[in-house]
């Protein structure tokens, strides 16, 4: 199940979750996105990549969805690592993604 909307898309392919566009929907809108993340983690991938290089904007509810729906879920799977590919072009990523390190150990953040 991929999510494609006018302003954003979330695609899961070969262990890579790719989020693109601008994501600034209301909190209720994130419910299905969070369950999509949980589904992915639950499917038991050996490794997981979150590619947000083309995610230009994410609102605060989106940050919460990432933290709870994806990152904290990864922690429940022993030995699973999450790699986040970010872009230096987006200031919000520079400011916020490094703080995800506080959540779990098994996290790699790469800025490109």
């Amino acid at each position, binding site marked *: 199940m991929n999510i494609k909307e006018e302003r954003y898309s979330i695609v899961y392919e070969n262990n890579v979750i790719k989020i693109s566009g601008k994501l600034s929907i209301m909190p209720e809108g994130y419910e299905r996105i969070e369950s999509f993340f949980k589904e992915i983690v639950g499917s038991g991938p050996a490794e997981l990549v979150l590619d947000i290089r083309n995610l230009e904007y994410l609102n605060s509810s989106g940050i919460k969805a990432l933290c709870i729906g994806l990152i904290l879920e990864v922690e429940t799977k022993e030995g699973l690592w999450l790699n986040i590919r970010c872009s230096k072009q987006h200031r919000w990523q520079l400011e916020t993604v490094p*703080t995800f390190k506080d959540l779990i150990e098994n996290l790699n953040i790469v800025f490109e």
Partner: protein
Amino acid sequence: MSNENKEKDKLKRRIAGLEKTLQIVTGYSGRIEKNLRQLFEVVSDTMPVPMMISLKTGAILFFNGNAQKIFGYSEKEFRKIAASLLYENPDDRGIFLKTLEDKGEVRDFAVNLKKADGSVFPASLFSRQIVFEGQNCLLTVIHDLSELKQEEEKRLMLERQLRQTQKMEAIGTMAGGIAHDFNNILTVIFGKLELASMMLPGESKVVRYIADALAAARRAKAMTKQILAFCRKTEYARKPFHISTVVAEAYKMIASLTPSDIEVRLGIKAESAIILCDPTQIHQVMMNLCSNAHHALRDRGGVIEILLEEVRAGSQEKIMIPALKSGDYVRLTVRDNGPGIEKNIVDRVFDPFFTTKPSGEGTGMGLSIVRGILQAHGGAVSVDSEPGKGAAFHCWFPLVAQTEDLTESVMPQDTVERHRKNSVRG
């Protein structure tokens, strides 16, 4: 580890994760909030229009620099004042709020607003309901229309002036032609009357009749002369004169012609002021104005004041008298305490041929000649009248200089003498 402990541990870690998430999210929102607030402040302070945010109750929560500037309140005062006090009529805010409620927004709400110093300016308001700092508010943008209005008024005035000039020109051409022919006819009348009286014995009654006829014809001649002078396009030779001397001369003559129930007063406060003028024309201006004042005081008596003073024309005067450029002037005022001029005709008294006098008594040319002379001198004439209290005509002559010792050299006595004989009543 027991199962129970494992569960406990898992829950603990979950709680810790949620706490950290909360921190991350609030940190993130804080940054966004700050950016948005900054965006709002930059937008509101860079946009070239006054803007403010107020509560329905009238408390003002936010105003930009332009709003402060246009209303002239300090930041502290602005925070205390009720929004309704920014309206000339505070009730207007009620109408404004009602419109906002009915339509959801307000566009182009025309209203007069009031500044801190009490002055009023026309404006148009645009407003929407918003939530600001957690409260239901209205964001209002103010369009200052005073400049627009001024532009419009200026355009209308120029249009009026243009029409006036065109009318004057047409009338001038026509009147000039008539006066010229009329003058020729008068010459014949004069000649024949003089001949006739010469041929009569001195004690004859007819001589008196003819003398009266001659006097009337002389008046007619003076009148045509005025008209011709008015229509003549050639520039008069204007020289620097102490206008006070010219005015004093004319005053003497006017006073001697004035009936005893009218007092003529002279007040000269611009002794050394020099203007470029043709003294004949100054005489004519005074004669025309005083003859009107005589007429206004006829049968009731009164006072005519002739004043000469130096004045500076600033923006205030320019609004009242559009033809005036800012600068220093010598102002000649002829004021009477007669019946004054009705409001509905005051705009027309300078029009050629406008008269309220019965035919035979008024030509309607007196003031239009005064206006023409002032225009030719680079000045302007204005009228101040309060019906029932009198009228004052102000003649503004551009000031050239002030010196004490120019008088003799620039004012050959004969100029004044010669013109004194030619002066006529308007």
